[in-house]
């Protein structure tokens, strides 16, 4: 029985009925990883404890004890999220040997729902990047083409789902790090509202922007995971106290009367024409389901990338200060005094992109520059938020392409940071405003590369995103296309 292409919902059903054991399910995915991941490199490590965890779940189920909502479901977790007893590297040499003593809140939630963590996925170092080329543990390939990047920073989480090495995975999204790789790899990825999922245990890149979310082959599967990982966490001061709905309950509600805004700023220069037409086709599908569409404007969109690339490095420069060679991090062997220890350890432990952003952030926060950079960026951020508030007075959702291009070639942008940063042009605004956004597959280009459609919603209205995505996926088969088919 080939389990690899089954949806998470279907796996949970079979596990629950006893048709499938957690152990055989886990084994089957671990086998597949062993067979196929050496060329793909989507995992940094697989969890040795997964089989025994699965056995324990089977044992409990067979003796009639209660099991959680995801009992036996294999889940891959981005390596920037802490897992107790399992190495957590954040893609960095700095944390090559770091084994956390605690689980991230969201991992705890997965484990108490009896999901099985099968491994840790590759990522751009400290989530800084849009291609997963910036990992100390090597480049992850796009399952659709080994010449192309899977996107990033959650490239490993996207690639492993696209290659059927895991039914669902967990990513984190600071400026598009879930949605952009989801688009590049032809899967569904949701960045929840800021505060919806606890950040406790997520190794911070930019604290005011980071958000953990699910990646899967369908909106329905994302909803299953969202039901488990959402909710208030008293260990995270920025965690929201809002009620959490059952995200799978409203998936089949009608789209009649739903107002969808087409953001005109997302259809400008630089947008690949094949992506544009795929998105336009998607609009027709949604209209056929009863949604109304209307053109809207998010006028400060042109400033979003610049704003993001001030705020994120500023926060990162401070968040990454703790990686100093003193305790658990990489320490240079040759340092003779404290200053040397700091300088050499950080020079050796961090990759180029991370160093670049630390320097950018340090500079922007420096005395004399703070007002011109950080403060000004914070003001623009408020204006961007205000754009969304105004737009959501008129519409329920905002639609556009997830990315201006499909997956680019490995090495294509490594010498051109600006081109790389522009890959985030449609995604960063949702992080700056804190609103939820989803990317779903909506086409393939003539070159056979996947295209992503982005939908954004009001804060805490992930349910609408999942519903529209699910209804779209009932009408289309883009999300079922496989790279090797």
């Amino acid at each position, binding site marked *: 029985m080939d389990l690899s292409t089954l949806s998470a919902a279907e796996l949970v059903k079979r596990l629950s009925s006893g048709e499938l054991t957690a152990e055989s399910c886990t084994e089957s995915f671990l086998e597949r990883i062993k067979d196929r991941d050496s060329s793909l490199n989507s995992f940094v490590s697989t969890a040795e404890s997964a089989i025994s965890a699965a056995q324990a779940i089977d044992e409990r189920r067979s003796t009639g004890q209660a099991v959680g909502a995801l009992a036996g479901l294999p889940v891959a977790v981005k390596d920037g*999220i*802490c897992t107790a007893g399992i190495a*957590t590297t*954040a893609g960095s040499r700095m*944390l090559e040997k*770091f084994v*956390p*003593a*605690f689980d*991230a809140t969201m991992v705890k939630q997965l484990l108490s729902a009896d999901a099985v963590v099968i491994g840790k996925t590759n990522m751009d170092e400290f989530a800084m990047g849009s291609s997963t080329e910036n990992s100390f543990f090597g480049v992850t390939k796009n399952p659709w083409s080994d010449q192309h990047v899977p996107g990033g920073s959650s490239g490993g989480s996207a690639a492993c789902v696209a290659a059927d090495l895991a039914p669902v995975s967990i990513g984190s999204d600071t400026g598009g790090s879930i949605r952009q790789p989801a688009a590049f790899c032809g899967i569904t990825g949701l960045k929840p509202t800021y505060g919806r999922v606890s*950040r*406790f*245990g*997520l*190794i*911070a890149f*930019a*604290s*005011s922007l980071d958000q953990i979310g699910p990646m899967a082959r369908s909106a329905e599967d994302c909803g299953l995971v969202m039901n488990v990982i959402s909710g208030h966490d*008293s*260990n*995270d*001061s*920025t965690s929201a106290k809002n009620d959490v709905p059952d995200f799978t309950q409203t998936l089949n509600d009608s789209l009649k009367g739903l107002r969808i805004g087409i953001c005109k700023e997302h259809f400008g220069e630089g947008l690949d024409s094949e992506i544009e037409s795929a998105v336009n086709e998607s609009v027709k599908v949604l209209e056929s389901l009863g949604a109304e569409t209307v053109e809207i404007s998010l006028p400060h969109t042109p400033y979003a990338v610049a704003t993001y690339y001030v705020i994120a490095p*500023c*926060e990162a*420069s*401070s968040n*990454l*200060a*703790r*990686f*100093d060679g*003193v*305790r*658990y991090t990489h320490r240079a062997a040759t340092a003779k005094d*404290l200053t040397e220890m*700091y300088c050499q350890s950080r020079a050796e432990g961090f990759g180029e992109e991370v160093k670049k952003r630390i320097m950018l952030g*340090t500079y922007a*926060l*420096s*005395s004399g520059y*703070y007002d011109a950079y*950080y403060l000004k960026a914070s003001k623009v951020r408020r204006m961007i938020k205000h754009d969304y508030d105004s737009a959501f007075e008129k519409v329920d959702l905002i639609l556009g392409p997830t990315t201006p291009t499909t997956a680019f070639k490995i090495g294509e942008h490594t010498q051109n940071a600006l081109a790389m940063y522009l890959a985030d042009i449609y995604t960063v605004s949702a992080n700056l405003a804190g609103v939820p956004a989803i990317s779903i597959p909506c086409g393939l280009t003539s070159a056979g590369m996947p295209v992503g459609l982005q939908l954004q919603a009001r804060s805490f209205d992930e349910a609408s995103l999942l519903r529209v995505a699910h209804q779209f996926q009932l009408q289309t088969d883009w999300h079922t296309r496989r790279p090797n088919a």
Partner: protein
Amino acid sequence: MSETFTSPQFDQATRDAVSNDDVTVIIGLEVHVQLDTESKLFCGCSTEFGAPPNTQTCAVCTGMPGSLPVINERALQLSIKTGLALNCEIARYTKWDRKNYFYPDLPKGYQISQFDKPICGQGYLDITAPKGEFEPRRVELERAHLEEDAGKSMHDESQRGGNSKIDLNRTGTPLLEIVTKPDMRSPAEARAFLTELKLILTYIGVSDCNMQHGNLRCDGNVNLHIKVGGEKIATPIVEIKNMNSFRAAERALGYEAGRQLKLWKQNGKTIADAPKQTRGWNDADQVTTPQREKEESADYRYFPDPDLIAVTIEESEIESIKKEIGRLPAQWRELLIKEHGLKPYDAGVMVGQGAEVVEYFLVVAQGCGNSKMASNWVGQEVLRFLNESGEAIDAYPVSADQMTELLTKVNAGELDQTRAKEVLQEMIDSKIEVQAAMDKLGIKAVDNSEIESLCRQLIDENPDVIQQIKDGNGKAVGALIGKSRKLNPNANPGLVKDTILKMIGA
């Protein structure tokens, strides 16, 4: 312990210059107070002092990747309470900022502090000199902000390249940093400020202010304004760290003023010529020495901490904390002076002992109905015992009720002062109550006929003394009192004296 004020620790030249009004010493203080919370500022770890190194730590206070801070509400409340007691404006909106710098005892690479929206804004503290060393002064406060403490570094001093050791138990304990304006004009004023501040903080129960445990730390900023011709020239500002006691603070500030005057005479450098310098107080050599400027040139790159949300403080919360404050030391002093007739100095000494001593006094004063007597007994007998034993009032063996009973007997003439002190000593030594102590000493009431026969005996046996009294030497009666004490120690000497005088018709 009572704080006694020493004269300003100036050298002769500085003393002369100050008294001639040629030089004004300008002093500002920064005081770090550890708030008395059970757990740290952003995690649940204990703040108890003295645990083995690195045993009171968790992922949050050691800055492990992925950990996040959560504010301790109690620390906010204690900060508000302190701010109210120091007449500060309490912020309705306050937020957290990161102060970025690298140091091994700072595990996150930044300290969570408050930059531009401190919890307490401007306030003031009035100081007076009980012995008149300076005029009463209002010291204005710039602000008070809440921040987390760093850990403790223990460096290898052997110069043999040993490793430094770090203890993170203290990391993350809540500190309130109280910053004054440069309003003090002498080391004595600075000491008076610190003494009064500590008293207030202990009265309102926000900190034990234990300086040995580092729960109250003080840095001073000092420079001179020197009159030259018609102009006033300011010398470079020096920040003095490591002032480990109020006495050390007074001496360090005094020393530094003298050093600056000398230096100015040598090189004439003014505040425009040199940046602020940091010096440390060396208590052994009684000098300030330049400190390694590890942070002085640093740019801390403050920015709002994105892991914490800003705090809004409701008026109602401030009001309810206000109700918890109770009388402050200055108000107690006023009460003791106005309603109990204490001299300002005595009121100061009493209040300086802490709220519990004042409460003890009030119970005794009200109970025995004689504030003056209560003040003498508490001020002398009780405080002497506490000073000698180093104990707090709750360890004093005689309860306020028992002291009241004793003084009521004195007040009623049943015991004279001398006998009463013997009784008190017996109460302390044998840990017994008033009556038991009197029984043990054989003290019982002496009736009038006994007194009369005693006096008759004294008159009969001492004709010479009686003659002297009759000749006008009133003091001679003292000799008879002494004899009376031997014949019957319970006889009231005053009564014996009066009776003798009446009987001989003098």
